[in-house]
């Protein structure tokens, strides 16, 4: 834990140096600054747009915007968080422009206020992380994520995929921390239901594995 904290601290310190040098005109160092976050930027854009081509374009726009506005970055924030926030804003703007959100917004008004009742499975069969090497497993996870509704998806991706804090997630999405927690809990429970094999989750139906068998084996 301590070594991780030190590592993060060293990383942030290196970033601060890079950012200072970029601001002073060594623009090519920007490649080094963003390289560790390229995948995260794409993932954030894809989570909102759900389309590879749009996500890639928005990811590029976001990185360019970060470069152009590097002077506006304030040192008290993490660079990665700032970059993801720019990406989310860009993706949301793109979505608004495309009007694609209108239909989804309707389906998103599911009863957030009420308690979510998780399906009653006898047990949970662990899906090992090693199985993520298989593309069909990753695709199944992506499909499940796409099925939970935009507002849950956004919160889940920022918090559990991008590892932003609750506060950072709230700030990025311009909602309260309480709303983040409520949506996050529901997103996690819905995903758990969708990924429970053998009981009709999209996981099982899409992969069409034999009932009772573990799809990841």
């Amino acid at each position, binding site marked *: 834990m301590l070594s991780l904290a030190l590592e993060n601290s060293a990383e942030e310190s290196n970033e601060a140096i890079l950012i200072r040098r970029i601001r002073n*005109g060594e*623009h*090519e160092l*920007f*490649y080094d600054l963003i*390289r560790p976050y*390229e*995948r*995260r930027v*794409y*993932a954030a854009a894809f989570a909102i747009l759900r389309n*590879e081509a749009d996500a*890639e374009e928005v*990811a*590029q726009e976001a*990185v*360019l915007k970060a*470069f*152009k506005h590097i002077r506006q970055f304030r040192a008290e924030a993490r660079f990665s968080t700032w970059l993801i926030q720019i990406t989310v804003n860009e993706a949301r703007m793109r979505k608004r422009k495309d009007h694609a959100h209108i239909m989804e917004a309707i389906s998103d008004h599911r009863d957030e206020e009420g*308690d*979510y*009742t*998780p399906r*009653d*499975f*006898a*047990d*949970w069969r*662990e*899906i090992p*992380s090693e199985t*993520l*090497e298989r593309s069909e497993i*990753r695709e199944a*996870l992506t499909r499940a*994520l796409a099925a939970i509704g935009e507002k849950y998806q956004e919160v*889940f991706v920022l918090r*559990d*995929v991008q*590892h932003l804090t609750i506060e950072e997630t709230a700030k990025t999405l311009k909602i309260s921390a309480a709303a983040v*927690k409520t949506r*996050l*809990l529901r997103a*996690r*429970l819905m*995903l*758990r239901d969708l*990924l*429970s094999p053998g009981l009709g989750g999209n996981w099982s139906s899409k992969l069409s594995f034999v009932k009772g068998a573990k799809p990841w084996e």
Partner: protein
Amino acid sequence: MGMSCQEVWREVSNYLEDDIDPAVRASVEAHLRGCAHCTAVMDGTRNVIRLYGDKAMLEVPLGFSQRLHQRLEANMPPRQRGTPWGWVMAVAASLLIVGGFELGSSAAFMANELRSEHAIPAASHTPPDLMVVVAEDGKVFHGGTRCPFMHEKNKERVMRASEAIREGYVPCTRCMKQYLSAGLTTPDFHWGISAEVAALQPMR
């Protein structure tokens, strides 16, 4: 009184993130010991968080990084990357070095140093297609931006010698004289500038 299943579900995130009051944690754990359903919910949610949090989920399309860097490069400011203007400047400057301007610091250059800095070579001796640099600080054109007589280096323009002469510029007494005195005015010699570069339309 113990917690209900519904109360436990409300605490799933807090429990898994260890953001929970110790007394509530104890109640949740007491409930889990006797409830297979809630244990499956807790295990499954923990598994979901771990899976989606894995770096393997950050998949990008093939060539994504390359295309991103290309886009960035295309948008870098000229000084770093080179707009057509900057590119011409860079090529011209580097070729001038190769072609003889580097003699400026060499013994050969010193040997050929003209007696007077003010002895202006005849402009007509300058190959008309030679790419030269003009600065805003006077009506003088130079062989390259490294000429010590060139000031205002941020405001220079590259053009053909013939155009510079037509616009009233005269060759620099330092760098152009050296070039001329070195006898490099044969028609085949473009001062190291390739035919492609020489054929470029000068930037205005």
